[in-house]
């Protein structure tokens, strides 16, 4: 249960007691959030003690009588302006338009005319409580979003700075002719610089893909995609990396198997899967990509005999910039965005991803995809 603090300010003791009795066991159901709001109450009989309590206790809802012995309710609002985070309900026996306008200007949320029944009081407080609750919830979400964005940008800055620093460092050494006058002595420095710049380029491209997918701005060309051909192309794109590690890439796909999709997106999925299966494999290992039709959907399975993941690593797998850093992976290049992209593309096809992994033995990714409808427009904004 969520507790909200209510301060009742009225010079009549009977009024204060009545309000407390009406609200102390009152509950507001917020079904859409499966939450209940209850109330914690305090009272004040004059303006000065009300101001003090507003500042020291920070109530969420302020039930404020207009006529107080030492000042008006409007004075209380003026005195606490900028120092309170409360929804104000003005209580008044003489509901003049002038008072209403001034109170609203000073931040009053609602009015309650005296005399009122306990039900009328509860109804008004319920409205204010809902408002406070929703407002807080929205604020919290906004803060979380800002935090996630800040973290994303911090990591991105680090990921972009590292290759730049590496290349810049090599440039310094080359300028100093650190390895003598022979140009050939610098081949490895040039080679490493090209590799690091390539990694950076891949990161920028992946980032663009991810942003386009998230914003729904990615243009799509839905067509009949020959999956055997698509798998062959994906295998070709990892051939040199696989050769370097002596990893065998095997394809199991029936001739003529096809689906309705954007060819670029299918390639993103298949290449992503195979790239990981090769990259995180052991020397001399196997990567198997299987495609078939099952219950009208396309089923993709990509398994490897690689280094595998621990349960903890598995649980973090689809986060952005999550690259499993351990002694097996530290020399493996990658943007850390591949699986985030994969997940978003699979979502466009109403599909799902299942991952199984045994540490030290290998991983397998299982994906299902539904055919896209031929007239599919630009991708819907994908939700994270």
């Amino acid at each position, binding site marked *: 249960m969520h507790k909200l603090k209510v301060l009742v300010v009225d010079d009549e003791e009977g009024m204060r007691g009545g309000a407390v009795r009406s609200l102390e066991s009152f509950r507001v159901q917020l079904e859409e959030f499966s939450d209940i709001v209850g109330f914690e109450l305090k009272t004040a009989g004059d303006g000065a003690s009300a101001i003090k309590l507003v500042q020291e206790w920070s109530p969420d809802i302020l039930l404020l009588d207009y006529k107080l012995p030492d000042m008006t309710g409007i004075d209380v609002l003026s005195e606490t302006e900028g120092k309170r985070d409360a929804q104000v309900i003005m209580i008044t026996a003489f509901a003049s338009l002038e008072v209403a306008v001034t109170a609203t200007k000073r931040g009053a949320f609602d009015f309650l005319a005296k005399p009122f029944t306990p039900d009328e009081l509860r109804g008004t407080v319920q409205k204010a409580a809902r408002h406070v609750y929703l407002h807080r919830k929205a604020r919290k979400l906004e803060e979380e979003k800002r935090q996630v964005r800040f973290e994303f940008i911090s990591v991105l800055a*680090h990921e972009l700075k590292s290759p730049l*620093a590496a290349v810049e460092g*090599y440039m*310094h*050494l080359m300028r100093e002719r*650190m390895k003598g006058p022979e140009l050939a002595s610098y081949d490895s420095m040039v080679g490493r610089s090209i590799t690091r710049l390539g990694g950076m380029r891949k990161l920028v491209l992946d980032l663009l893909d991810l942003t386009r997918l998230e914003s729904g701005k990615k243009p799509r060309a839905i067509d009949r995609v020959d999956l055997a051909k698509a798998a062959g192309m994906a295998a070709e794109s990892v051939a040199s990396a696989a050769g370097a590690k002596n990893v065998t890439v095997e394809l199991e796909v029936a001739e003529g198997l096809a689906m309705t999709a954007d060819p670029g997106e299918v390639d993103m999925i298949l290449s992503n899967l195979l790239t990981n299966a090769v990259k995180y494999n052991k020397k001399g290992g196997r990567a198997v990509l299987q495609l078939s039709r099952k219950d009208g959907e396309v089923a993709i399975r990509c398994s490897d005999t690689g280094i595998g993941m621990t349960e903890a690593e598995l649980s973090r797998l689809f986060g952005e910039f999550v690259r499993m850093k351990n002694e097996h992976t530290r020399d493996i290049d990658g943007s850390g965005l591949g699986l985030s992209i994969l997940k978003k593309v699979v979502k466009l096809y109403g599909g799902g991803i299942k991952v199984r992994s045994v540490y030290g033995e290998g991983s397998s990714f299982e994906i299902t995809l539904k055919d896209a409808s031929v007239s599919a427009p630009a991708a819907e904004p994908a939700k994270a």
Partner: protein
Amino acid sequence: MTTTKKNILVVDDDQDMLEQVSLTMTAEGYNVATARGQEEAEETLLQFIPDLAIIDLMMEHMDSGFALCHHIKKLYPEVPVILLTGVAAATGIDFSTRQGDASSWMKADILLDKPARPEQLRAEVKRLMRV
């Protein structure tokens, strides 16, 4: 007359940075040992007594460099430590303006921005070892 070579420990999780710093230091005639992270460095320190250490700040963890620096200073309080950081832009922390008060809790003798220019690195190493 023969002088024994001075030992330098270089620690960085980025293979390229590691290579660059050790190349610069080897060319200067130092004896260099390298490690790819805090743990590996701590193992190396069991057999290798450095006269100076050059450490990357962010390795396995955000603060691996600090932890390692602390470890070295505990073992060998007199050994100067240079921390390399590329972190300033990512966090908004400007270490350079906080050198004075920061170094007291970081224990590092100096913080240099990544990538450190070879001439800068050489000068700082010489200064700290009073060569």
